[in-house]
């Protein structure tokens, strides 16, 4: 029984220009203790699908799913109060912008203790003690002093550590980290990632890591899901994905990845992700795909079986990744 199980998740936003489908039929599963990386270009619906699972989208969003269970509980028809017992305790999330993700009017100590007060039965003194422990765990030097600091008095890296301390405060079974290092200095990025993977290993919690960084994916993930324009186009164990990508988009991403380069951002491939008003018929990747034919341009591609990486493609690739993929 998977820890998180999402089947056929779709999210529509009501926008000024009509309804916009940001996530379209995405499946996500995470096992206990597993590290799942979600990669994809900007706007591919990585954040939105995770926020949908957490129930954190604004009211303009309509979320539908055939299945949305966490730890055996169906999140779809959980009452708000029952949901609050799960969110923040068993599943926690950290975000891309540590600076704006913390409340500027409260000290970081207050914000960590608040998470403890919400879910655990600890008295004041115990909460403070636990908050200090947590701050120590996430590598905040001189926690006693930092307890009373406001977010604007700390650096981005420190604030992200505070966010992580808050997220792991109640010992979650699953942590969702949405590009946790994108807003940070390069030197800090590695530290935060080490911290996250260390915590994941020690606590044996599930981790969903949304990232642009294929290097990070290769180093940390057990399994990778690739998203494109609101679709999940491929899902494979990390080794297999790097060796034999089945979806042309994944193959193009890997082919464009400079071998052992220092540039670790997600490589660019020609063309742009379709937006709200230029969605092609058939396969969403067809305008950029080297293998596209008339069938691709007219009919929606099926989802291939697990042996083919659940690739959402008419013509999944079979051979190991080579240069010809592009």
């Amino acid at each position, binding site marked *: 029984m998977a820890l998180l199980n999402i089947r056929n998740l779709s999210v529509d936003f009501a926008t000024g220009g009509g309804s916009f489908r940001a996530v379209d039929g995405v499946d996500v599963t995470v096992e206990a203790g597993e590290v799942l990386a979600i990669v994809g270009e900007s706007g591919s619906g990585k954040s939105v699908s995770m*926020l949908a699972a*957490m129930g*954190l989208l*604004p009211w303009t969003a309509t979320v539908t799913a055939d299945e949305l269970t966490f730890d055996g509980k169906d999140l779809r028809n959980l009452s*708000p109060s029952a*949901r*609050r*017992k*799960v*969110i*923040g*305790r068993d599943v*926690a*999330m950290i*975000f891309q*912008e540590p600076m*704006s*993700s*913390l*409340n*500027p*009017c*409260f000290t970081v100590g207050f914000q960590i203790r*608040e*998470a403890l007060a*919400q*879910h655990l039965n600890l008295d004041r003194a115990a909460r403070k003690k636990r908050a200090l422990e947590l701050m120590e765990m996430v590598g905040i030097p001189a926690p006693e002093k930092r307890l009373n600091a*406001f977010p*604007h*008095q700390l650096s981005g890296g420190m604030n992200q550590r505070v*966010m992580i301390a*808050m997220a792991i405060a109640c010992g979650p079974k699953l942590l969702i980290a949405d590009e946790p290092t994108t807003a940070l200095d390069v030197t800090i990025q590695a530290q935060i990632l080490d911290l996250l993977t260390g915590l994941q290993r020690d606590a044996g919690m599930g981790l969903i890591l949304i990232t642009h960084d294929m290097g990070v994916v290769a180093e940390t993930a057990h399994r990778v899901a690739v998203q494109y324009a609101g679709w999940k186009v491929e899902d494979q164990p990390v080794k297999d994905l790097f060796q034999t990508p089945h979806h042309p988009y994944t193959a193009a991403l890997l082919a464009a990845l400079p071998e052992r380069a220092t540039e670790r951002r997600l490589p660019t491939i020609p063309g742009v992700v379709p937006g709200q008003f230029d969605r092609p018929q058939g396969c969403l990747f067809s305008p950029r795909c080297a293998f596209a034919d008339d069938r691709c341009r007219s009919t929606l591609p099926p989802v291939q079986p697990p042996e083919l990486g659940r690739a959402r493609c008419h013509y999944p690739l079979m051979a190991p990744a080579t240069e010809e993929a592009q």
Partner: protein
Amino acid sequence: MLRFLFSRLATFFVTFVGVTLISFAFIRVIPGDPIIVMAGERGMSQERYEELSRQYGFDQPLLTQFWDYLTGVLQGDLGQSFVTKKPVWDEFFALFPATLELSLCAIILAIALGIPAGVIAAVNRGKFFDRALMSSALVGYSMPIFWWALLLIIVFSGNLGWTPVSGRMGLLYYFPTPTGFMLIDSLLSGQDGAFTSAIRHLILPTIVLATIPLAVIARQTRSAMLEVLSEDYIRTARAKGLKPWRINGLHALRNAMIPVITVIGLSVGTLLAGAILTETIFSWPGIGKWMVDSIFRRDYPVVQGGLLLVAVVVMIVNLIVDMLYGLINPRIRTRK
């Protein structure tokens, strides 16, 4: 914080001198000679007129008059009323508690209703509550105060007979007023029913005076809340599994209060201006009514001094608001 305070005090002083000049000029711009007004219907001889002119210093050049006034003010001497011959200072302090009591009740009412109304509207954005509250706010904001007061008087005092029409206290009661606040003095007097009478007299003027600030505060709270509710840290608060009242009432409201506090500070000026009208309608014996009467009598020292003191009160309130602002916004408080 100290430097912050110091710069505020410097601004305070400059504004003070400016207000002295404006209050001095204001009453002199209005046509009408105070001495002739004083003489009334009877008129007076030319010699008597000149004698009085000399006595009050009106024969001096304006600049000299202003200089005398300014040096007087800086020594704490605001002059005497032409009409009552009592020091302006004494009259002000005799009447100010009535205005302060009314204004405090009004601002408390406006805050106590306006902030929750704004929060409820923002949380229910676009739904029934939001629309109902914001349409009422718009009506309250644009309603002519005079008309609104008369309407309330007709309904509650006239038709229903629930509230008195004017004044601060029923005629049956008489007691000393050591604090000048009728709510406190009536309690101290120990007379049966005096406190109730004080409250009944306060209700309508308070509602009338609170209406505009209430509407302004509700609208500002709503828009500040809407802005704050889309911030990342609200998403974080929700991700922690906090209860909605804690997210809206603590995490969001605390941030939304920063602009709201500013608006409350600004309302105090509006409130004192509104007090002039409200006090006149309800014959409320405060400085508003005092000022209006004095303008009609061309009682120069009272108008000058009264305006100046009202301005000082507004400035002090704004100073307090500025400091509150620093207290509530840690980014300002902790600035080096």
